[in-house]
């Protein structure tokens, strides 16, 4: 059967938090392996980092930055729900979801500006 509708804010936040966490958990070992390339010398590390100049890779990095920001902001909302006093019975702090998503988009934009050469310095 169809179950309870899932398009209310708190549920969307759950999905965002869980999927971003899953993506980050898959990414993290790869991230550590890449950084470990520095053990094999500067040239090897630089050789790998050259891939970071490719637009496709920059886009992937942007995706990860946004996912990390989403996971952070939605996670902080959960900590607030659990540790801060509730002001009302239905105080699911749904406004934090909007701010969190907006914050993640903002961080992503700043990243893009830096990654694609709009930096000030």
């Amino acid at each position, binding site marked *: 059967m*169809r179950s309870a509708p899932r398009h209310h804010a708190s549920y969307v936040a*759950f999905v965002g938090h869980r999927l971003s966490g899953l993506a980050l958990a898959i990414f993290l070992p790869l991230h550590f392996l890449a950084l470990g390339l520095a053990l094999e010398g500067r040239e090897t590390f630089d050789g790998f980092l050259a891939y970071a100049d490719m637009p496709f890779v920059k886009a992937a990095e942007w995706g990860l930055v946004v996912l990390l920001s989403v996971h952070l902001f939605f996670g902080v909302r959960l900590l607030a729900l659990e540790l801060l006093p*509730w002001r009302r019975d239905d105080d699911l702090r749904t406004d934090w979801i909007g701010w969190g998503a907006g914050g993640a988009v903002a961080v992503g934009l700043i990243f893009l500006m830096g990654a694609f050469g709009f930096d000030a310095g």
Partner: protein
Amino acid sequence: MDDTPRDMAPEADPRTETPHDEATIRARVWRGDRRGRFVTYEVPHRENQTVLDVVSEIQRYHEPALAYRFACRVGVCGSCAMTVNGRPRWTCRTHVKRVVENGEITIEPLRNMPPIKDLACDMSGFFDKWHRAGGRFEGTATRHDPPIPVDPASRKRKLADAGIECINCGVCYAACDVVSWTDDYVGPAALNRAWTLVNDERHADRRGTLDKATAQGGCSSCHAQGNCTTHCPIGISPTRSIAGLKRMSLLDLLNRRAP
């Protein structure tokens, strides 16, 4: 002169009575248990009609074997809870005109509980979990002692009172996805009950209730999806109660670690 009181007049047979408008409702109703099928019944669309009215009409005039539950039919007992167009709700409090889609409504038993027959489901698992979460009250006084004075304005009493009106209708339990994904999650109603007890100074086993509510399948399984809070027909927020249990669990662990 006909002095039969109005409520004892013979009930009009809806099959012959002309409805106020000509429209009908097609009600797709689940028949069977876990294996079964939807059967569609047509009933007249009336001006003031609840989903419970539709189900009752089907059972009285179309299908006497249709099994369903209700009691008060005025929105206080919670017995008539069913899944209507995919949402768990009290059918006596659901007006047809608010949920009908293209002249059709779909009526099923509550999710997360095994269907016994048609629209009636087996709630024993729901009540077992209520106990498993530590919901059973244990008193400290006897009938010979004076009643324990509890200040209704105290912080703990206010927290308990926010959840005390639960009548165990099962709607929150049916709405919860985590309940559907796991066998051992005790669910929002059970944890809400546990929260009212850990805040009840008269309860002798607050330690035991907290231990049960924070065990495997307890409050840590909740992900604050909020389906329970958005569906509770009387406005309780199990999410809030569970958040309180989580906070208590954290502080409790940190306190116990302190020498």
